[in-house]
């Protein structure tokens, strides 16, 4: 059942997601081309000024577009969650023979996978942007290529000094933080939809910001406590880096169960 739910969640979002990917690609190509033009511009020719201005605007537009794609994809998934569970479509979703956990998790998992995909796509597009942008600057490329071995060994030296588990912890921090934010977003949508009678979207936004304030206070505490209880700098760092993912995960789990309870017991579609 869960995989079927996941399949339908994906089907509902893949078209728009595909369009956003194309927009991102297009924007990156535009950005790359404008960057290439600007990199090659030698500054003396007045007839090129108009094109320069256009290029600058083009590049800004491309940057804006890519940023928007990121926001839009998140809104796409949250919108799908809201529409399929808390509008008339909920009359179908909640009469399907699935448990509430399967119901909620299918949306969560689909969103997580989808956003991960978008991050990868955006990364690839930005890489393309750079490649196109730098493709004409022979001198720069040659310079970087010459300095490459020196840069590389300097990087390796620094890298060797950082304890491996610090990096792993930072990575874990990022993942749990993203996951927690996602759960908080869905929780906000749920609270807004279930508890607010009118202006549900506004309520959801309000709830989200309220949660953020609350979380930053809690997180601030988790950073402050090690600092106050120890003098050893390294120990403090360790405690913070270890403690934060744990705390974030706990918050995410608590948020999920709150969402579960709201949907299971207090759902009221109209």
């Amino acid at each position: 059942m869960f995989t079927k739910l996941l399949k339908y969640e994906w089907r509902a979002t893949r078209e728009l997601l595909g369009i956003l990917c194309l927009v991102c690609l297009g924007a990156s190509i535009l950005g790359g081309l404008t960057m290439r033009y600007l990199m090659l511009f030698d500054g003396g020719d007045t007839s090129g000024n108009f094109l320069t201005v256009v290029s600058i605007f083009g590049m800004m537009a491309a940057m804006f577009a890519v940023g928007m794609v990121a926001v839009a994809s998140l809104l796409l998934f949250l919108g799908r969650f809201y529409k399929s569970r808390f509008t008339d479509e909920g009359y179908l979703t909640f009469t399907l023979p699935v448990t509430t956990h399967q119901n909620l998790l299918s949306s969560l998992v689909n969103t997580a996978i989808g956003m991960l995909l978008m991050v990868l796509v955006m990364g690839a597009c930005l890489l393309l942007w750079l490649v196109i942008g730098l493709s004409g600057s022979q001198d720069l490329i040659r310079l970087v290529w010459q300095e490459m071995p020196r840069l590389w060994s300097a990087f390796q030296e620094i890298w060797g000094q950082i304890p491996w588990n610090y990096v792993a912890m930072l990575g874990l921090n990022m993942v749990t933080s993203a996951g927690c934010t996602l759960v908080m977003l869905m929780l906000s949508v749920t609270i807004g939809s279930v508890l607010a009678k009118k202006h549900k979207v506004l309520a959801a936004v309000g709830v989200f910001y309220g949660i953020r304030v609350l979380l930053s206070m809690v997180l601030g505490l988790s950073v402050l406590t090690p600092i106050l209880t120890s003098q050893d700098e390294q120990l403090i760092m360790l405690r913070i880096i270890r403690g934060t993912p744990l705390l974030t995960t706990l918050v995410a789990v608590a948020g999920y169960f709150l969402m579960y309870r709201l949907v299971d017991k207090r759902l009221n579609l109209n």
Partner: protein
Amino acid sequence: MSCVLQAEGLTKRYHHAAALDGLDLQLPAGKIIGLLGPNGSGKTTFMKIAAGLLTPTTGQITVCGQAIGPKSKALVSYLPDRNCFSKRMKVAQMLDCYQDFFSDFDRARAEDMLSALAIDRDARFQTLSKGTQEKVQLVLTMSRRARLYLLDEPIGGVDPAARDYILHTIINNYDPDATVLISTHLISDVERVLDEFLFLYQGKVIRQGEADAAREESGKSLDELFREVFKCLPNC
């Protein structure tokens, strides 16, 4: 299984009032039952609880002995009084969806009914007329071999020909193991199809029985009986 739904002391309270107030009822299998009552009497609330869309404040409800959950939802086929599909979905996709999630869905039967109504499988739901949309939803609901069918105001906003079609489908679909609960306030259209009836008022059952027996006793149609019972009640 002789009893398809059992409710005891079922109460649903909102801030201002109780939509259901200590409702007790039992629905036997193999019957077509009318849930009749004025607006605000709790018909839709009751159906939503049985379908798993609302949780009661207090009280118990079981469907074929199961508590409300995924197992009961697999036995209950619910037709809401509104469209519950994404408008951009095609009819064929809706059939796929039902087939995917409900093991009791009889696809062949649904296809036959849609063909008889000359409905294009590739049409997007939003392009169909309102009457056709309601018929499609009805076809999907009735093509499941469920134990309990909950039809919330199925003939409310449709023309007389469509009403006939809906009643025809309900009769043709009759299964001695299953029960159909129809909530409506268009009693005279529906009463010849009912085995039993329930009069609901302010969240309680105030009268119930067999349709023919009531006609014999009172010498009135259910429609007339309804008017008689409800005209002297406040808030009607």
